[in-house]
């Protein structure tokens, strides 16, 4: 079974600074998706960024980028120029490309606070 580990329960960053959120996962599969989701206090889960395992190039979405290390099974999220609106819980998630369904396996999440 696949597992996703987020070992940092909380992090804090100064507004306009850069922060990196860590995630590791365990799988025996070679093809899969990895995601970072954001869950603000209003609770609606929003997709931040995704990475296909077969792609060597790290995904980037505006101020958000990932560092995907397939061999190390590591998938970190870098937020540049942090803004107050980035404060939320962030979840790392894994999705297989095989099997009967497209379930997401989530980590425990990390609470990010942004200091003005």
């Amino acid at each position, binding site marked *: 079974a696949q597992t996703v580990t987020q070992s940092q329960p909380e992090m804090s960053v100064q507004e306009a600074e850069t922060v990196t959120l860590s995630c590791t996962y365990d799988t025996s599969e070679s093809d899969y998706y990895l995601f970072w989701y954001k869950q603000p206090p209003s609770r609606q889960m929003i997709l931040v960024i995704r990475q296909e395992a077969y792609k060597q190039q790290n995904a980037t979405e505006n101020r958000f980028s990932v560092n995907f290390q397939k061999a190390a099974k590591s998938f970190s999220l870098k937020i540049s120029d942090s803004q107050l609106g980035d404060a939320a819980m962030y979840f790392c998630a894994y999705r297989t490309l095989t099997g009967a369904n497209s379930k*997401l396996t989530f980590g425990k999440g990390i609470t990010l606070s942004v200091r003005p």
Partner: protein
Amino acid sequence: DAGVTQSPTHLIKTRGQHVTLRCSPISGHKSVSWYQQVLGQGPQFIFQYYEKEERGRGNFPDRFSARQFPNYSSELNVNALLLGDSALYLCASSLGQWDYEQYFGPGTRLTVT
């Protein structure tokens, strides 16, 4: 366009009771998945339905059941509620069964006393 909607927003039930949670996917989306998010934890997969058929089930007891209707809306039913069922229940929809992006609703907060 309306996003995924869930009802009710909050619910308080007593141990042993039954509860029904409802989800309406984004228009045109045919796949609905349910997740349970206990406070302080990440969401855990309960079910996926696509074209009204169950396509996946997580590690939850038989007290949990779901169905999908012809209009692709879905219900999650939980029987014989336990204190441990207290959680945020999230519904997510996607266009097809295998689309990588799932759109989440705001959730239903269930409290079992």
